[in-house]
């Protein structure tokens, strides 16, 4: 393994597609595009719901989005309460 600085990552002069921020933007916008397409796809097929809530237009998409945003924000909040330094357990262990 050779460590090199991020400015000169030693790719052997090779430039990767994702190294260009504009291509990262392309990935970002294509995810949005796919999601819009999937959301609208709900109009095109007949659902077989077990529960009434599944009949809501784009239910799975909306649920997935807000569940994940909620998950991340809650987890971020939990950090305030749960996060400790890496050596938190070291003082009463690893003495041997």
């Amino acid at each position: 393994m050779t460590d090199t600085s991020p400015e000169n990552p030693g790719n052997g002069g090779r430039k990767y597609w994702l190294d260009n921020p504009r291509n990262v933007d392309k990935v970002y916008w294509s995810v949005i595009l796919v999601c819009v397409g999937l959301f609208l796809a709900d109009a095109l097929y007949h659902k077989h719901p077990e529960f009434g809530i599944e009949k809501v237009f784009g239910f799975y998409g909306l649920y997935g989005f807000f569940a994940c945003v909620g998950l991340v924000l809650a987890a971020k909040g939990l950090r305030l309460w749960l996060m400790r330094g890496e050596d938190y357990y070291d003082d009463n262990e690893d003495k041997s």
Partner: protein
Amino acid sequence: MVLGIPPGLFLIAGALLVPLFQGRWRQMYMLFLPLAGLWCLVDGASGTFFAFTFFDYDIVPVRIDRLSLIFGYIFHIAAALSVVYAWHNKDIVEQMAGLAYAGSGIGALFAGDLITLFVYWEAMAVTSVFLIWARRTNASYAAGMRYLIIQVGSGVLLLSGAILMAHDTGSIAFEKMTLGSLATWLILLAFGIKCAFPFMHNWLQDSYPEATVTGTVFLSAFTTKCAVYALARGFPGTELLIYVGAAMTAFPIFYAVIENDLRRVLAYSLNNQLGFMVVGVGIGSTLAINGAAAHAFAHILYKALLFMSMGAVLYRVGTVKGSELGGLYKSMPFTTVFCIIGAASISAFPLFSGFIAKSLTLSAVAHDGYFAVWLILLFASAGVFHHSGIKIPYFAFFAHDSGKRCKEAPLNMLIAMGITAFLCIAIGVHSPWLYSLLPYDVDYAPYTTSHVIGQVQLLMFSALAFAVLMRFKIYPPELKSVNLDFDITYRKWLPAIYKWIIARTRDGWQSILQDLRQGVHRFVAYMFRHHGPEGILARTWPTGSMALWVAVLLGGFLLTYYL
């Protein structure tokens, strides 16, 4: 049976002979063991074997039926893949422990009575801990100790339950049980510990990331899935398990989002996956038990694949901390692809193994009308994609370039990952292959339009949430840290309470001793005052004065006599 040896025991016995082989021969021999075991199961008949009576109790060392068989297949496959992944490793402790551990797990699957189960149960604990200790760091030693105490404790509970069961019913057969008596509760608790139920889960996240690169791949397959099997055998349809399982799917994902050690993230997501299986067991319908078994089968493969890819990173870079990685796709392109396949499988993308397995459980939950549980499982499905599906590959292989450059993983690791990845896709694409192995006949079509679109919507919008949160820099960065979990109770609080009590009792004891000593001092001082060199009772008196006093007394006596 291979050579007339029970499955499981064959691998354990085979492990003992590993030192007799060297170099390539040893690699071949180690691969031969699980493959031979698998071969003999494939055309093996069901039924009970080697049964004998011991003090009026029926010991059934081997019971083969469709439920134990599917777990038996995948345990052998996992053992073979783990062996290939570990081929470069020359550590004989790990080689023997890995095979013996796999054998113990397989033996436990086929145990037809609780005593046989107990023996293999403890053998799993004792053999597997060497995979943790083989890391040979202080942290792994301590984590291994904690692991061993908890695992052996689970076995002790199982044995206590079995003895009570024998006392209550006169039988030690391992069959379906109904919760009620103390015996059944103890057995459920024993299973629950190994299955990482909430509040009994922390041994998993504590120890697996501390094990060796190759050891964690072994560990990820057997112990917990053996517990799932034991639950499916002993407690199918126990409603309590539905809620326990739902809790297991949900709470670990919060930890997974903020955890920095990527192998620990995988341990949390393993816990979440076990939750789905436990829910399936709790529902207990044929569809749900099929779901739990299918999920276990698929899960062992993709979880092993994810641990393999992170193991390869640890092997090459020396760390799997998200805060120190990034941009590794440039150095390890194959590992990156395999990791993404594992990530897509665990996230249950259509055409990957997780999809056809998880669908069974979700449909069973919906079919039986558990709306709240269904919502939690859906949330957990989105969450698992978020932390295992995106976070793991993103922070290891993409994110911002850490500047770290290394070699691609060794060839044997790539072969193991390649075969595992192939299986993940094959199972997902051709669902009848896995469905035909399930304990009950399957009449289920996973690839319906509404099902596929619903699932892809759920996942892509989760990806969208990740992308948006990243874009607006709301997503919590990877930080060097540990997060408090339930293990704080026995790593901090109990030792602190112990020290406090010792300190208090020592203080109390000291003051009692001091009081006693003071009393003695006072007594001695009192005696000293009266009997010491200066004491009134210890003074020396001249004999003359004594004679005088005697004369006075005699005189007094004479006087009173005449009066």
